[in-house]
């Protein structure tokens, strides 16, 4: 009797593990190697940036303090990332530069995703006239030249304080980058609303608002997450680009783009003082890469149909591939020998 119980262990209903949807998502995400790498990279960068920002805030670190004696020094223990041509510590400036990027990235992404998903789902669900109006608006915004607008608006608010200019940048980025997302969401929702489960929600007497929020949007969430991370990365790049053109937050507040721009102002500093541009550049690259990795991992984790590959499975697959390769090699050798 006890043997039978032992045999059935792991196969009976009592042994089935009940996992809530959230737990399932977390497990899937954790089993994704690349996504976890991106996640840790992201966490480390964000933590360091935030800690530096508040450290600078509380200790009253002066970003405009210059020291001609420390001009253009290479990396050392005292100045890990070297110093710039005014003798300022690049290490602190690079870490502080991320603060602006983070703010711009988060705020404009939240803005773009909110507007994009709302507009896209309204257009897709209701169709007809509402759809036409929203899609025309999207097309108009889509055809705005981003740089020209950024130039103009930045010029208008040139005298305003840096924090205000930051919000202006966030506003421009958010208002311009929702259009692609709106199109994706609209297309998805148009095909989804013909499915029978939406008819079922009508039959159940679910309100239109909840039909969209609870049934349609979760089904496009994977798309939104991927698109959202791309928007996030794009917003940070755009901010860097604007700083590079001196259209974003101005001196003495550092941003990654502005640091790169400083370095590129003359070729001597580019060639000789590599530490001025290589550290902000690397930070920017790593941050954006980590965001994209997280996005990819989240998409797989949210999709209930996506499969999990655990560590053991990955190992097994690796060994299998190795064996196959070996077999192929041997077969090739054998055929050559035969000829």
């Amino acid at each position, binding site marked *: 009797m006890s043997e039978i119980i032992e045999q059935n262990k792991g196969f009976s209903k009592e042994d089935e593990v009940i996992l809530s949807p959230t737990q399932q998502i977390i497990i899937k995400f954790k089993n994704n190697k690349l996504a976890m790498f991106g996640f840790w990279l992201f966490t480390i960068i964000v933590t360091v940036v935030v800690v530096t920002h508040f450290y600078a805030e509380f200790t009253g670190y002066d970003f405009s303090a210059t020291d001609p004696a420390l001009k253009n020094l290479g990396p050392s223990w005292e100045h890990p990332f070297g110093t710039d041509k005014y003798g300022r510590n690049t290490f602190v400036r690079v870490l502080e530069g991320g603060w602006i990027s983070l703010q711009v990235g988060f705020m404009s992404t939240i803005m773009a995703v909110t507007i994009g998903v709302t507009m896209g789902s309204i257009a897709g669900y209701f169709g007809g006239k509402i759809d036409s109006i929203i899609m025309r608006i999207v097309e108009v915004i889509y055809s705005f030249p981003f740089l020209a607008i950024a130039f103009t608006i930045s010029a208008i608010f040139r005298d305003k304080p840096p924090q205000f200019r930051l919000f202006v940048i966030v506003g421009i980025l958010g208002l311009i980058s929702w259009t692609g997302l709106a199109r994706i969401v609209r297309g998805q929702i148009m095909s989804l609303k013909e499915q029978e489960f939406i008819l079922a929600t009508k039959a159940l007497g*679910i309100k239109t608002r909840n039909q969209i929020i609870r049934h349609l949007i979760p089904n496009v969430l994977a798309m939104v997450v991927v698109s959202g991370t791309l928007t996030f990365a794009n917003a940070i790049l755009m901010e860097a680009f604007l700083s590079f053109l001196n259209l974003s937050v101005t001196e003495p507040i550092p941003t990654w783009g502005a640091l790169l721009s400083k370095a590129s102002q003359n070729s001597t500093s580019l060639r000789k003082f590599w530490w001025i541009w290589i550290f902000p550049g690397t930070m920017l690259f790593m941050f954006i890469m980590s965001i994209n990795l997280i996005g990819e991992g989240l998409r797989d984790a949210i999709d209930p149909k996506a499969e999990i590959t655990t560590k053991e499975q990955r190992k097994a697959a690796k060994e299998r591939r190795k064996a196959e390769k070996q077999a192929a090699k041997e077969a090739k050798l054998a055929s050559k020998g035969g000829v």
Partner: protein
Amino acid sequence: MPNVLLETKGVKKYFPTGMKRNEKRNLKRLSLETVRIYKKDYPDTNPKLKEKELFNDIYNQFKEGKIFSDELNSVLVEYEALSNVHGDRLYVRANDGINLTIYDGETVGLVGESGCGKSTFGRTILKLYEPTEGEILFNGKNITDYSMNQMIPLRREMQIIFQDPYSSLNPRMTVGEIIGEALLEHGIFKSRNDEFENYVKEIMRTCGLDDYMIYRYPHEFSGGQRQRIGIARALALKPKFIVCDEAVSALDVSIQSQVINLLKDLQNKFGLSYLFISHDLAVVKHISDRIGVMYLGDMVEFTDKHRLYDNPLHPYTKALLSAIPETDLEKARSKKRIILEGDIPSNIIVPTGCKFHTRCPIAKPVCKLEIPEFREVEKGHFVACHFSGAEL
């Protein structure tokens, strides 16, 4: 007599196709034929007249009331009928005026070929589709013009089980969410507390699903289990009336019987009424009290199940019933199989008169011209046929 739960009066549902009717070619053919017959019947016509002018002349005379030979008359009648509808907007006539009464606690079966409008009817009476014409009365209230929001409180009392267990469940929601969503929406439970969860589990048990499945996603289930989720979702609101839109046709036979017996048990327990849509005659016979037979958007026969199976009056019903496979060899030998010629006609350009005349073995000229009335031949036995009960 039990209460009338749901009544429909001449419900029509047309789906616009966005096209217009083009009969140019047919009209031309008919006009040429008219001229040919005319020349044959009246050899002393002016040979100089062009065909078009001659035809116009004949047609004008016909309109003024002149009577020609029978052959010519019939062609001209056809021409007139076609020229009247030429240029009309085209619709898919899914339901073409259906009258039906469903009493409290009974099961009405609805059978017919695929594409004859059974599912559309089931959805139209739940107001999932707006009816083009006609009236729907539920519990004595006329719900034809109710808006989406006005319908919401009524949804607690009328539900639907869908045919396709795959697309009718949201793939992003767990079973518990799917079943319990409407309960929260209608305010039967205020929040997702233990009481709510117990209620959902109880409903799941009633439908043959285990408790531990509550956090699973639909794609982790088999087709039969998914169908039971769909049934549980409909039952969770404790409705009075359920439309079973081919609820068992996606399941294999052993699961079919389970689900049907489940539906019957629930009917006894809660006093439900069903509109059971199916094309499986054996299943319909098992579950229904009264059965309606549909053909191309029309109800052709409606009566209680014993009378329908013992004494069908409409030729289509007879043909349909003769197609049921028989397990008794003696019976099978003596049984006459009625084979209908041709395919089901288009329900965009429907046949004139009785829609069944194109395939009916006993069709007479009158069938082509006059639409038969849906009338009560015996008490509780409705048939739409000019020659109801005639031998085939």
